């Protein structure tokens, strides 16, 4: 591996992993301490996350309660701190829609909102009834500072994107190397016209070592991906394991490559081992593609960007994340390739030792 690639790897990883912790989360609405809305006055505390209520308490801090596309202005009673403000809203007894949301707006944070299930049984609903609502004039509807997108339930753990997801990209790339090397093994043994049979042996031996070294490195990244994914799932989806096509697919990939190493260990003859392992590896990689690329498109699951697109849609992965995510992916791929290189060289040294 070239030195500049190693330096690139180090720089990319340093940048990405440091930024994964360095940048703040974009502001967002956390919760309101109210369960039931009634006609007339409603007083509640609005809790934000990374917001700047106090800083803007005199210029442009606004709160609204919306019903469908109609907005009802609120009166700010007290700004407690940057993330908390006590407000009062007066609602009419007829609302246009059952979809209730709570908005906050400051010049720095832009507009943030909270959707929360509410007891709204005290209201009458009528589509065209717009009494009391105002057209909204907000100071700024986009936040000004660099920050990762705020998403309810995920919160700060969105930073895991830079740690967990590159594991799978790296595994895929390293397994692809293994797949290519396995094809080389078979094409080396398949050359019938090669007169010197020892030449075939040497050729397939080199490719076999490459294939097994890369499969081993890929398996390490697969294990890391499974463990980190399981932890992330526990604290966002609520269970260590959920019935999600990508999760199940990842587990099957893990089992397949464990089976690959069991197969390798059960054959003693070196040439035969190379051939059989290569055959199984090709089979396994094709299934890996089907499992992780094809099947998740066709089944509903919890991972983002489902139904037609297993990657991230523009909504899920905004530009602030991309700027850190792609360097992280490339950094980890280079790191994986480096580790594979080391593993391969040790393998070659060990086999020289035996002879």
């Amino acid at each position: 591996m070239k030195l500049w690639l190693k330096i690139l790897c180090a720089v990319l990883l340093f940048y990405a992993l440091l930024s994964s912790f360095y940048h703040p989360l974009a502001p967002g609405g956390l919760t309101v301490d109210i369960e039931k809305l009634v006609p007339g006055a409603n007083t509640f505390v609005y809790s934000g996350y990374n917001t700047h209520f106090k800083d803007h308490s005199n210029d442009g801090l606004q709160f609204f309660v919306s019903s469908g596309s109609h907005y009802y202005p609120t009166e700010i009673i007290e700004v407690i701190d940057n993330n908390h403000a006590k407000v009062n809203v007066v609602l009419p007894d007829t609302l246009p829609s059952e979809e209730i949301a709570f908005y906050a707006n400051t010049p720095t944070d832009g507009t943030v909102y909270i959707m929360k299930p509410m007891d709204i049984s005290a209201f009458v609903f009528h589509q065209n009834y717009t009494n009391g609502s105002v057209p909204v004039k907000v100071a700024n509807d986009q936040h000004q500072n660099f920050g990762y997108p705020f998403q309810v339930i995920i919160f700060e753990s969105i930073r895991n994107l830079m740690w967990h997801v590159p594991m799978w990209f790296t595994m895929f790339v390293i397994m692809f190397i293994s797949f290519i090397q396995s094809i080389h093994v078979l094409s080396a043994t398949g050359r019938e016209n090669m007169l010197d049979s020892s030449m075939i042996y040497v050729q397939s031996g080199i490719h076999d070592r490459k294939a097994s070294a890369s499969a081993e490195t890929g398996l390490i990244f697969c294990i890391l991906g499974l463990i980190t994914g399981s932890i992330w799932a526990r604290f966002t989806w609520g269970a260590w394991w959920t019935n999600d096509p990508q999760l199940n697919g990842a587990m099957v990939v893990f089992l397949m490559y464990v089976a690959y190493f069991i197969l390798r260990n059960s054959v003693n003859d070196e040439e035969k081992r190379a051939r059989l392992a290569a055959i199984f590896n090709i089979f396994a990689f094709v299934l890996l593609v089907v499992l992780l690329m094809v099947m998740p498109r066709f089944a509903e699951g919890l991972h983002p960007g489902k139904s037609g697109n297993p990657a991230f849609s523009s909504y899920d992965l905004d530009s602030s994340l991309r700027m850190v995510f792609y360097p992280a992916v490339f950094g980890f791929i280079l790191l994986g390739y480096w580790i594979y290189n080391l593993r391969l060289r040790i393998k070659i040294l060990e086999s020289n030792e035996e002879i």
Partner: protein
Amino acid sequence: MTAFKELLKKEIRLELRQKHALAGVGMYVLATVFVCYLSLETLESQRLWGGLIWITGLFTAFNAMQKTFQQEGGGTQLYLYTLASARSVILSKALYNALLVSVLNTASLMFFILFFGEKPFADADLSQFVLGLLLGSTGLGFTLTFISGLAYKSGSGVGLVAILGFPVIIPLLITIVRFTTGALLGLTWLENGLNLLVLVILNASSLLLSLLLFPYLWRD
């Protein structure tokens, strides 16, 4: 092509000659379904039907497939090697095993209906269900034939078939269970179509890979 036909005939003739082996697998199917009945007594949810049919199908296929390479000694295989191309050998074996698994799975379905009744089929789409039964069986047959060939050549016996076979078969199993359950619940072709597509992709890829890779396996 003629070699392939002769080989297929040979497989069928060999199976019919060894009636005890076929009867053994048949008994295995019956016993499995009977044990299911004894432990569950009633089985009304379509989801459980879909799952149980294919778990039974999976183990039946493993059982039926184990002898496919083992029953021929080294001498016979050398003879076959000189006589026919590797592709016709694997094609005949794969098709024969797909046929065998289809027959066995149909039998196991009969036993399921015998013990648990036909109630779950009340709003099932039968043509979908039959297609699922066929495609699932052929998929099991194709994949496991290839894997048992691989395990046989590694020379470490029957245990390796399970170790190599299980991870490789799970994608097929997930899809076929989903498709069959969908058919039993009466989904339309459009709603169930994506599962069918994955099923066809898996079937085609396992058959194609067997044809591509078996020549490398067959030579020694």
